């Protein structure tokens, strides 16, 4: 069971790190200063989450690896993040709509994980919930501003929704390991969250006068290490310094 919890914590760490890195790409590139600060604040929350999940995975592995080894010394086939996190940041509408979908997911997922019988996973989740409440309020507000704003903002938001939708299904797809951990009261049955998530997304999109796509296509594979070409490029940049100077400290 310990090896399975290690794997589970690594997955959650991968989700957080990859999204945190994508958000950090906005640093000094956001539409205006307040947004620059907000995006980087959210990025930091996610990178902090990744550190906690990796730190726990490292502790469980008891093979001398630390959190940096998990972040910087694995290749893309070993990364198990859900694909939605690795998609390029796109325009500001794409970034914020992705946040809306993920923030809503986390607002349902984390309270369940906080009830895990695994004390460490529960503690990390309890901490992260508080931050997610802030994230969600912001992504919700931006969705309204896009949808009810100008023709261009509406069009860009709708395009982002249509591009992202097929990647949202993977969030609710459990593999054998996740099902086993959910049954054991350690992990979360994310499949059971789908109806509620869809209702909440639907309510926000309706409020913003945006359209919810139908079930046209779905992509998955992240948990098995099958990624889009984007992850390799992200890792190449993120890991380059660590790989060029292994073990360097400053």
């Amino acid at each position, binding site marked *: 069971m310990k090896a399975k919890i290690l794997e589970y914590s690594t997955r959650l760490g991968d989700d957080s790190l990859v999204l*945190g890195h994508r958000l950090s790409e906005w640093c000094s590139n956001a539409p205006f200063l*307040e*947004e620059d*600060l*907000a995006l980087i*604040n*959210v*990025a*930091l*929350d*996610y*990178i*902090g*989450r990744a*550190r*906690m999940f990796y730190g726990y995975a490292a502790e469980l592995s008891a093979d001398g690896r630390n959190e940096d080894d998990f972040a910087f010394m694995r290749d893309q086939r070993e990364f198990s993040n859900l694909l939605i996190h690795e998609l390029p940041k796109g325009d500001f509408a794409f970034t914020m709509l992705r946040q809306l979908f993920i923030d809503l997911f986390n607002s349902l997922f984390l309270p369940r994980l906080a009830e895990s019988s695994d*004390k*460490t996973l*529960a*503690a*990390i989740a*309890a*901490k*992260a919930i*508080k*931050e997610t*409440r*802030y994230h969600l*309020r*912001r992504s919700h507000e931006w969705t309204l501003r896009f949808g009810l704003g100008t023709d261009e903002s509406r069009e860009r938001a709708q395009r982002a929704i249509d591009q992202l939708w097929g990647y949202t299904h993977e969030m609710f797809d459990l593999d054998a390991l996740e099902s086993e951990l959910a049954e054991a009261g350690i992990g979360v049955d994310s499949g059971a969250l789908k109806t509620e998530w869809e209702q909440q997304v639907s309510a926000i999109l309706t409020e913003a006068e945006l359209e919810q796509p139908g079930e046209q296509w779905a992509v998955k594979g992240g948990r098995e290490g099958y990624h889009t070409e984007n992850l390799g490029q992200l890792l190449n940049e993120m890991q380059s310094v660590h790989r060029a100077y292994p073990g360097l400290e400053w």
Partner: protein
Amino acid sequence: MVIEFPLPTAAYQARLAQRQASALPEIWALLEQVCDPEIPVLSLWDLGVLNDIEQTDERLLVTITPTYSGCPAMQTMRDDIEAVLRQSGIAAFEVRESLSPAWSSDWISPEGRSKLTAYGIAAPRACTACRGQPLDAEIQCPRCGSTETRMTSEFGSTACKALFQCQACLEPFDYFKPI
């Protein structure tokens, strides 16, 4: 100046009781001088990061609670605590991070709230009252005391702060977020 929630908070009183029950008052007083690197008027005690000090057989065990998951100041806080302990001739110690229970702005001391306001940062409202509610409800300007203020961004210069502007005196200011 109207304060709209009871002070000190129950969460702070629980921290204080723990400190007062401790057998190491001199270490608490010693570590009271370690301040937040970003908000140097606040001690780690005021902020709610310094939460327990115990003496075990082998070493002094100091427990700190991180504020935000990714707060980059945590490492500096830890280093500063270690430096103060070493300067005082304490060699056997461990600084331990505790995630549970999760840190809350309700843990900030009443003195810490006054210091924040004097420093130009509006102190957080009680978290229990704010949960799920919008942030921009009548935050008092730390400069002129007016509640005619508006939020310019929920995310400020550090993870723990939001940006506000006073409509009365026009001062832009930080608001320490309730969390």
